[in-house]
């Protein structure tokens, strides 16, 4: 009897103890953040929103011609070039000088760097006017700034763009002095300015593949010179390129190279060396900009330029090649 009693007591005690223990409270949850992953710092949906905002501003200004509003979403060379285009368009009284900046993109190249400034790139589909697609760069200079269009180039016809990392992964920015490339982005821009200026005579000519822009200047210069020579005025044409102080924007390509985008300024000078000859502005735009200046034997046209180049990785045998440019006249003078 004792034993059974003791045993039953034990059973009861166990039961009660279990019941009490079971009543313990739920534990507080602890934050379990996902591990940081390598991904673009701008999602594609965010990029789309940014593009919509920027293009909203651009379109609004295109309609209203109120260039002051551009600053909200344009910065750097893009702002300067667009203002110039608007000015030229106003002078010509048509919209032809305005680059079509409709932002329907076929590809976006998103930044993967968490630091600022952050730069994203995007390539538009072919514009309605059947010009070539436009490569745009957007820059967020600091965390409390918005993304603003920083620059654009029209791609060369038939150009093959380098491959970029998956948009969701993001592409790393390349510092202007990056050494992993055939030449640093900064020096690529400087050397290319030289090549554009003196073409084959540049000591850097061998580093650059021939391209449409250089060919354009050859053809255009010959056209002008020939026109002047017809009058036996000893025509001369020269063009001088110079990088601006704007920073160079570069992004890593899939093969380890870089897409480099930079702003430049250029000045083309057409001269009739024969005494007594006078020449006027050569194009419709320059005529519009000419105003009522006196005609002399010199025409100087100042341009604002953007170039985009592909710089291959260091061990590559490829040359640096131009992928697109923008070349916008903004002032003309008689020297």
């Amino acid at each position: 009897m004792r034993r059974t009693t003791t045993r039953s007591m034990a059973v009861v005690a166990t039961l009660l103890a279990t019941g009490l223990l079971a009543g313990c409270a739920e534990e507080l949850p602890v934050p379990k953040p996902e591990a940081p992953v390598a991904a673009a710092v701008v999602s594609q949906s965010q990029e789309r929103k940014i593009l919509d905002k920027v293009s909203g501003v651009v379109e609004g200004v295109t309609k209203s011609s109120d260039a002051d509003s551009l600053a909200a979403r344009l910065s750097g060379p893009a702002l300067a070039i667009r203002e110039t285009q608007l000015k030229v368009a106003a002078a010509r009284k048509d919209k032809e000088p305005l680059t079509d900046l409709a932002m329907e993109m076929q590809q976006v190249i998103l930044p993967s760097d968490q630091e600022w400034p952050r730069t994203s790139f995007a390539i538009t589909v072919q514009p309605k006017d059947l010009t070539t697609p436009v490569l745009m760069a957007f820059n967020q200079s600091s965390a409390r700034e918005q993304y603003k269009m920083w620059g654009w180039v029209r791609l060369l016809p038939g150009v093959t763009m380098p491959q970029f990392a998956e948009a969701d992964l993001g592409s790393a920015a390349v510092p202007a002095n990056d050494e992993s490339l055939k030449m640093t982005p900064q020096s690529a821009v400087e050397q290319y300015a030289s090549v554009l200026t003196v073409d084959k005579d540049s000591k850097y000519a061998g580093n650059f593949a021939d391209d449409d822009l250089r060919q354009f200047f050859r053809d255009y210069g010959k056209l002008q010179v020939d026109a002047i020579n017809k009058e036996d005025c000893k025509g001369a044409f020269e063009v001088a390129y110079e990088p601006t102080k704007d920073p160079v924007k570069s992004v890593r390509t899939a093969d380890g190279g870089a897409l480099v985008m930079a702003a430049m300024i250029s000045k083309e000078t057409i001269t009739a060396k024969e005494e007594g000859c006078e020449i006027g502005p050569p194009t419709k735009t320059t005529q519009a900009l000419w105003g009522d200046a006196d005609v002399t034997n010199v025409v100087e046209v100042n341009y604002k330029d953007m170039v985009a180049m592909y710089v291959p990785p260091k061990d590559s045998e490829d040359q640096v090649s131009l992928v697109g440019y923008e070349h916008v006249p903004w002032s003309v003078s008689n020297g």
Partner: protein
Amino acid sequence: MVQRFLAILLILAGLGGIGFGIATATVLRDSDTVVATATPSGDGTMVVTDPGVLGLVDDQVTVRATVPEGQKVTLALGSDVDVLGWVGSDPYDSVTGLSSWETLSVAPGTPAATDDEEAEEAPAEKPTTGPDPAGSDMWISETSGEGVASLRWTEQPGRVVLLAAGVGKGAEAPTLELTWPRPVTTPYLWPGVLGGGFVLILGVFMLLGSRRKKGKGKGGSTSAVRTRQSSPELPRRDAVFGVDGGEADQHPEEPRGGFPPAPGGAPGDAPDGGTAVFPPAAPERPGRARPEPGTPRPGTQRPGAPRPGRPDPGTPEPTEDRTQAWGAPAPFGGAAPIVPAPEPAPAPAPVAAPAASIRGMRRSRRSQGPGAPAPAAPVQSAPAQFGGAVPEHTQPAPARPAAPAPAEADTAASGKPMTRREMRMREQAQRRAATGAMPAVPAAEPQPEPEQETPSSRAAAWRQTWGVTGNDDGGNR
């Protein structure tokens, strides 16, 4: 005495357990939401949650931020990198988690690594103006409000954090309130109730045990209970047999009239008296019995079923009467000859009985095959009856004699369901045959059904299949 005390203790504990279980699901049930508040430490104008805090309790979170009257507050969601980048070197409060179910733990945030100069300048600037994060391209979602702002967020992959900022001159860091829905579980309900119930029963038994001990000397009631229990069982069996026998002797209709009522009452009343006999009897009879338990079974099912058939083939055979008790064999008609076997079986060993009956059934079926034309007619009538009876399997027998004609209409209607049932039954039977368990029961059930529904051909085919399974069962046994 001690045992009794323990018993009572157990009963109380059991009741308590049950009560506790129910209480956890009712009055003690947790709230459906978790509302936690973060009160800023007063440094800075911004509050930032750590990654993972928004999804702390549930994927869905409602954020509510309040600032003193007349001030503006902005809520923004963004990746932790973006948010901290935006905050930059300004002082802010970091919400690091829950310190209780009602409060969020807040710690001064670690300013982003920046130039020392900036960091030093920041505190000086802080009191003046709260920067407004509204409108940044980086935010996934944002909202602003005067005095209060709230935002809903469904957690998504990524390190999304919340930035709450008091905006404008003299801004203060907002007070943050996060609300999550919480799936409320009642984990103690069933353990409490079941465990409590178990303990309760244990206590009751203990109590009874202690009483019995006491009672032993007095000739306690418990013993009486036992005898009662045992006694009814025995009489039941007797009664069953008696019933069967009686039916056999009597005309089919008579027994039905007499017996059915009794059994009908029996299932419900079973515990009380002789009526209770049926339930136990039914299991014993396995195969046939099943339908029988319904009620009319003694007269109705087997006997009933056979009877319709019998009139033609059945009458000549005396065996049928014997078989009547088994019901099943009888329906199959003249074949009954083997019946004698079943009879003995049921009485002595319930288990054995089914097997015997099955054998009998086979034979009867086989015999039916040849005799098909004759049985066919009865079968048809049978379906009609069953049709009427459909609601209760057991009843078919009574129905037949009464109204074959009305039943026909019903049969038509019932035809389809019956076939499905047949199929099911057959499958079951085959399955069972394979396992060898409970063979008799399935056999019995299907039998009445085929008859009910089917025209002769179907019924015959069906029986054949059944006969086969029945054979197997019998053989196994």
